[in-house]
C-alpha cells in the first residue's frame, strides 16, 4: 500500500519534471513568439513585460518594408526546387539499388553517404569561383542545385530503406501483367510508398529551408532566402528585437509545423535507416 503510494508520488514528480524540462527547452521559441507581438519599447524593457498590449505592428512593417515576401519566395523556390530536383534523381536511383542490386551497390550507397561528410568549407572556394564565372552568384538556380546535391545522399538512402520494405512480389505481379519499368514505378511502387516518399521530400524541404552556409555565402539580395534576411538583423544598427522576432516567427512557423507532423518518419532519414 505504502509502496503504491510512493509510486504514485514518483510518477507525479516525473510528469511535473517532464513538463518543466519541455517548457525550458521550448522557452526561447515561446519568448520569440511573445516578443514578436510587443512594441519595440516593450521588447527592450527591463524587467521584461509578461503582460503587454499585443500589436501586429511588427508584422505589418516586416511585410511592408523589409520585403519579407521577396525572401520568403526565394526560400520557397530554392527549398521547393531542390526537393523536386532531388526526388527526380533520388527515386530512380533508390529503385535501381533496391530492386536491381549488383555486387557494388552496397559500396556505392556507402560512398554516397561519405559525400555527405565532405565539409562544405572544403569546397567553398571552388564552388564560389565556379558560380562567379558562370554568373550564378546570387542566383536561385545555383542554390537549388547545391541544396539538392547536399541532400541527395540522405534522400537516396531514405527512399532505399522504404523501397526495401516493399515486397518484390507486388512489382513482379505488375511485371507479369505486362507493365513496363516506368509503369511499374509510377503505377505501383510510387503509390504504395507515397508515405515514405512524402516524408523524404519533407526532410529535404526542412533541411534546405534551414540551410545557412551556402545561402549566406553565395547570395546577397536577389536570391537571398529567409536565413539571409534573418542574418541581416545581426548588424548593430538593425537591432530591432520585436521585428527580428516577427521575421523569425514567420520564417520558422511553417517548418516547425511540418516538423511536428512528421517527427517519427524523420528519424529514419536522419539516421540513414539505422534507427526506425
Amino acid at each position, binding site marked *: 500500500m505504502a509502496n503504491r503510494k510512493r509510486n504514485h508520488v514518483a510518477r507525479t514528480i516525473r510528469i511535473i519534471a517532464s513538463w518543466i*524540462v519541455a517548457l525550458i527547452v521550448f522557452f526561447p521559441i515561446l519568448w520569440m513568439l511573445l516578443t514578436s507581438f510587443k512594441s519595440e519599447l516593450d521588447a527592450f524593457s527591463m524587467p521584461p513585460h509578461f503582460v503587454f498590449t499585443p500589436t501586429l505592428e511588427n508584422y505589418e512593417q516586416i511585410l511592408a518594408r523589409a520585403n519579407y515576401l521577396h525572401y520568403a519566395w526565394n526560400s520557397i523556390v530554392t527549398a521547393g526546387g531542390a526537393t523536386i530536383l532531388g526526388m527526380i534523381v533520388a527515386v530512380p536511383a533508390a529503385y535501381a539499388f533496391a530492386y536491381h542490386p549488383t555486387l557494388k551497390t552496397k559500396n556505392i*550507397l556507402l560512398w554516397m553517404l561519405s559525400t555527405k561528410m565532405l*565539409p562544405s568549407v572544403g569546397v567553398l572556394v571552388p564552388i564560389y569561383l565556379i558560380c562567379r564565372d558562370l554568373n550564378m552568384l546570387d542566383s536561385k538556380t545555383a542554390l537549388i542545385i547545391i541544396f539538392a546535391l547536399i541532400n541527395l545522399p540522405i534522400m537516396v538512402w531514405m527512399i532505399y530503406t522504404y523501397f526495401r520494405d516493399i515486397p518484390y512480389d507486388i512489382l513482379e505481379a505488375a511485371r507479369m501483367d505486362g507493365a513496363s519499368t516506368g509503369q511499374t514505378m509510377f503505377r505501383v511502387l510510387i503509390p504504395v510508398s507515397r508515405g515514405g516518399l512524402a516524408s523524404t521530400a519533407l526532410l529535404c524541404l526542412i533541411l534546405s529551408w534551414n540551410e545557412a552556409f551556402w545561402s549566406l555565402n553565395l547570395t546577397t539580395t536577389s536570391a537571398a532566402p529567409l536565413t539571409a534576411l*534573418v*542574418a541581416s538583423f545581426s548588424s548593430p544598427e538593425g537591432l530591432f528585437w520585436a521585428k527580428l522576432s516577427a521575421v523569425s516567427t514567420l520564417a520558422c512557423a511553417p517548418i516547425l509545423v511540418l516538423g511536428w507532423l512528421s517527427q517519427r518518419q524523420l528519424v529514419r532519414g536522419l*539516421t540513414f535507416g539505422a534507427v526506425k
Partner: protein
Amino acid sequence: MSARIRKRPERLLAQPAIIMLLVWMIVPLAMTLYFSTQYYNLLYPGKSAFVGLENFAYFFTYPSFWTSILNTIILVGSVLVVTVVGGVLISVLVDETFPGQGIVRMLLISPFFIMPTVAALVWKNLLMNPVSGFLAWLWKLFGATPVNWFADWPLFSVITVVSWEWLPFAILIFVTALQSLDREQMEAARMDGARGFAIFRYLTLPHLARPIAVVVMVEAIFLLNIFAEIFVTTNGGPGDATTNVPYLVYTQALLEFDVGAASAGGLVAVVLANIMAVFLIRLIGKSLTEKT
C-alpha cells in the same frame, strides 16, 4: 541470360545520382587541391603562381589556425556530450506514458526545426543580452550580476546555442529507439526487484548503445560545419575566440580573398571530417548488412 540483359537498363536509373554526386565531389575537391598549391588572391588575379606547400606552411604557422582547430574540437566535443547525456536523460524521463506526453515531445523537439540564424540571434539578443535579455533579468532576480555572455564567455555561448539546436535531435532519436525496448523484459526485471537505476544501467543504456553511436556520428557531420551561428553572433571573435575551421576558411576566402590559403584550410577540414567519416561508414555499413 535474357533476364540479365533485361535488368541492365534499370541499373542505369542510378546513374544520374551517381554522376551528379561524383561531379559535386571530385571537381571542387580537385580544384581545392590545385588552389592549395597556388599563390592566388582574388584581388590580384594576374599574379597566381605555383608555391608548393607554402599555403600549408602559412596555415600551420598562423596562430589562429591552431586556435580554430582547438575551438572546433571543443565545440564539437562539448555539444556532443551535452546533447547525448541530456538526450538520454530526457528521453528516459518522458518515456512512460502520461497525460500530455505528445505535447511534451512536440515542445522538446521543436528547436531542431528552427533555422540556425534565428536560433543564434534569438539567444544572443532576447535571452543573453547583458542589459535587456531574459537571462539578465533572471540573474538579477536571484541577486546575481548579469553576465555579458557573448563578450565574456563567447565560446561557451556558442556551445549553448548549438547544444540547444541539437539536443532535440538526440531526444527525437532516443525516444524513438526506446519505443522498441522490450517492455516485458523491463517488467520481468522489475519483478526480480531491479530498481530504477539498475534497469537504466543494464537494460536501457545497452539498448541505446547503437542510437547513441548514430547520434554522435550524424551530429559530428553537422557540427564540423557550424558556420551561421558564429557568423551572426560573434564573427569569430572576440579576437579568434570563437573561430572554428569553417569560419577561418570563410574569412580567408571571402574576406581576404586569399584563395590559396583558404583552399589549404578547406583541405584540413576535409581531413578532420574524414577521420569521423571512417567510423560512421563502418557503423552504418554494419547495420546495413545486419538487416538484409
